[in-house]
């Protein structure tokens, strides 16, 4: 696979032993024994019900959760805190109301010469299809457009990994399907490693190279399923439906002893 000279970049090694939240009602074990390797340029979806720790897992990779036992490596380097090598898109767009699309996209762009900076920003605004809205303000954009801006903001710093936390969950069904096509198109251009968290099984099967299925309390990896379907995928295709059903069955199977993740 052509990787634009980034053959070895974007490998994520996750070795989380234990992540707990302590509150007034005691301690909640959020994640336990997460071992996962994500390959460069791979599109991985993490699915699970609410409370399975999938968002916490993504936040650990992003560096927003720092208190946990274990480590996460990016290209062999241990990650401590946040960094521009990872782009993050949240469920809410989290755009800044007082900045234009242009300035929102450029918000985190480190000191570049102004021309280069502007060119990069414009490139990513065009990539997400919003070149006509470069100087619009967030309140003038629809939900889907806002999320496109958030994707451009996450990509503009050329991160090695793009982390998406239920990015399309608050969009209407049609917009969501369009955005799923869009994120694939963008990924095919950028070829960054993508980790997308969702509770939508169909979304995971439509997008992912591999689907990581998580179970709750404690949050562990229940299974990892490769999706060997060529893109663009047909949601009505027999194989597509079969994969979707097997993930569904896996998620709703009676909780027994946690399955050991087959990470090979």
């Amino acid at each position, binding site marked *: 696979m052509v990787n634009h000279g980034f053959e070895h970049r974007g490998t994520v090694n996750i070795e989380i032993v234990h992540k707990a939240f302590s509150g007034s009602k005691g301690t909640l074990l959020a994640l336990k024994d997460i071992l996962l390797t994500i390959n460069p340029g791979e599109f991985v979806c993490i699915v699970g019900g609410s409370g399975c720790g999938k968002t916490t897992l993504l936040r650990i990779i992003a560096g*927003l959760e720092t208190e946990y036992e274990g480590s996460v490596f990016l290209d062999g380097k241990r990650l401590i*805190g*946040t960094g*521009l090598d990872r782009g993050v898109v949240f469920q809410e767009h*989290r755009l800044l109301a*007082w900045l*234009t699309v242009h300035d929102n996209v450029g918000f985190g762009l480190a000191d570049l010469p102004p021309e280069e900076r502007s060119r990069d920003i414009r490139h990513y605004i065009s990539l997400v299809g919003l070149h006509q809205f470069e100087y619009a*303000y967030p309140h003038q954009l629809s939900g889907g457009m806002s999320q496109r801006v958030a994707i451009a903001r996450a990509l503009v710093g050329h991160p090695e990994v793009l982390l998406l936390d239920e990015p399309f969950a608050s969009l209407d069904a049609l917009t969501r399907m369009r955005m799923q096509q869009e994120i694939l198109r963008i990924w095919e251009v950028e070829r960054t490693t993508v980790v997308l968290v969702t509770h939508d099984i169909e979304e995971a099967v439509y997008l992912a190279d591999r689907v990581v299925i998580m179970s709750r309390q404690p949050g562990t990896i229940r299974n990892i399923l490769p999706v060997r379907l060529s893109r663009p995928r047909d949601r009505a295709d027999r194989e597509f439906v079969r994969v979707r059903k097997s993930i569904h069955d896996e998620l709703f199977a009676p909780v027994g002893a946690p399955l050991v993740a087959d990470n090979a």
Partner: protein
Amino acid sequence: MSIAEQNRRLVWKSATAGLTPTLPDNIGRIYIPDRLLGWIIPVSVLLSWELLARLGRVPSNWMPAPTVVGKTIYQLAVAGDLLKHAGTTIARVAVGFLLGASAGTLLGGLTGYLPAARKLLDPSLQALRSVPSIAWVPLFLLWLGIQETSKIALISVGAFFPVYLNLSVAMHHVDPKLLEVGRLYRLSSFQMVRRLILPAALPEYIVGLRSGLGLAWMFVVAAELLGASSGIGYLMVDGEMTGRAAVILASVILFAVFGKATDWMMNAVGRRLLGHRAR
């Protein structure tokens, strides 16, 4: 004003229209644009007041006609008194407001950003806030004398609290989700304040400045009523002493006009700063 508001017209259906159903619907209705609606009461009150005063139905030494009040303002302007007194009052408001708002900005920013400063200072400031500000007057007079200093101090106290409170609370309550965006891009504390916290708190801060300015006007009246030899408040006292109701009413109108004008200016500045945001 939104387009919907502009397009909305209040429909008054006259009593006759209701009684004569044979008339087409649009006859017997008066369409009054919303922006004119607010003028109906003041204009009718002024007209009836003028009428009653001219007919001698209200004693002219108590309730001089609006035209007499207008003439009084004109005479004050011609004699140069208006410029002198209004100038003094506006200068007091300006200096008092600037001092109070600056202190409010400083302490509000400090307590809004640093939890330790908030814990240290906020309880004391909240306790001071619960003192009705006019209650400071005797103490200020005793400490600072009857001259300008005590008046400016009182006006500053009035302007301080809304500015302090609004900025402090707004900075404290900036959406943590936006702060996370700042963390993702590894902003320094200074950049966090300048690029996220201050812009996010700006709308509430402007509201605080506006109410601070309003209170500054309120307190200048109190300060000038309680002992001054110039200013619009002094004009009021003078009018009372000499039994000239027209001068008192003229002063009331002057306060209203200047208060409204400065609020309008502040609002215009605020709208300019926030113009692009969703309302």
